[in-house]
């Protein structure tokens, strides 16, 4: 339930890369290699009464994105096609991801799955997940005493 430890796999490079990144600003070979393992990358934020997940998935149409939620498991699916009518042999360079992708995210707490909304703008998917009533922090009044 603690957000701190949420979904953080042991990753010895994480802090290292952050520090090195600060020194050299860009360390692309390492970063690209690490990012290649999962697509898309996601960020998750706690905005008080809701969680907000953002994922850069450029070059998709909103109708090409498929999102589903079951309990605390959010699944993002999509397929990014190559440019139409471009033969493989006419590519001089190919770095961008193409093909089907699936990303499953386990949320840190329960959400109101019927009230989840998603928007797509400038190639970034933003999903807003209101926390379940029981999962929200509640102020408890203390009574009694003199």
């Amino acid at each position, binding site marked *: 339930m603690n957000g701190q430890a949420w*979904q953080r796999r042991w990753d010895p490079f994480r802090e290292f890369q952050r520090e090195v*990144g600060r020194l050299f600003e*860009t360390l*692309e070979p390492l970063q690209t290699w690490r990012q290649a393992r999962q697509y898309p990358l996601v960020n998750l*934020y*706690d905005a008080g009464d809701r969680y907000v997940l953002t994922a850069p998935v*450029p070059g998709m149409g909103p109708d090409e994105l498929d999102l589903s939620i079951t309990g605390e498991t959010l699944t993002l699916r999509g397929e990014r096609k190559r440019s139409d009518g471009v033969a493989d042999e006419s590519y*001089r360079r190919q770095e961008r991801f193409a093909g089907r992708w699936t990303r499953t995210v386990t949320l840190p707490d329960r959400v109101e799955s019927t009230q989840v909304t998603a928007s797509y703008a400038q190639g*970034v998917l933003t999903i807003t997940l209101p926390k379940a009533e029981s999962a929200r922090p509640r102020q408890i009044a203390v009574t009694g005493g003199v």
Partner: protein
Amino acid sequence: MSLDPHSIPVAYGPSARENGHDAAESREPAAQARAYHTPLIDIHECPDGLVLVADLPGATDENVSIQLEDNVLSMHARVSAPAPEGARVLHEEYRPVDFYRSFILSDEVERSKISAELKNGVLRLQLPKAERAKTRRIEIKS
């Protein structure tokens, strides 16, 4: 949200930037002032020349600039934070960092006819072939 591609002007020559950078800055303001990501790109040939496609998620047409100086084509996109105000980060796999990448163009590209458009965070640059570099069919007279 608009799904129509927007065309982005290509700036020619030095310091033709319009988005708040002063002329004292050099050709690579992003590289010097802030951390930046190198956007992933595809380049493919088409009958009229080359097409360069770059992923710039989070970029809007106002904050993408493309500049051609001498034979160096550079693209820079300013990206704002995706996080809602005051939200606490629980998990972060990417950071909202500007995009910057530059390319050296060959003489085969018709410099004055480069065009660019941005749609859904993908930039598409058309680099037409110069007339003299086009393949020409040579008729054989019998």
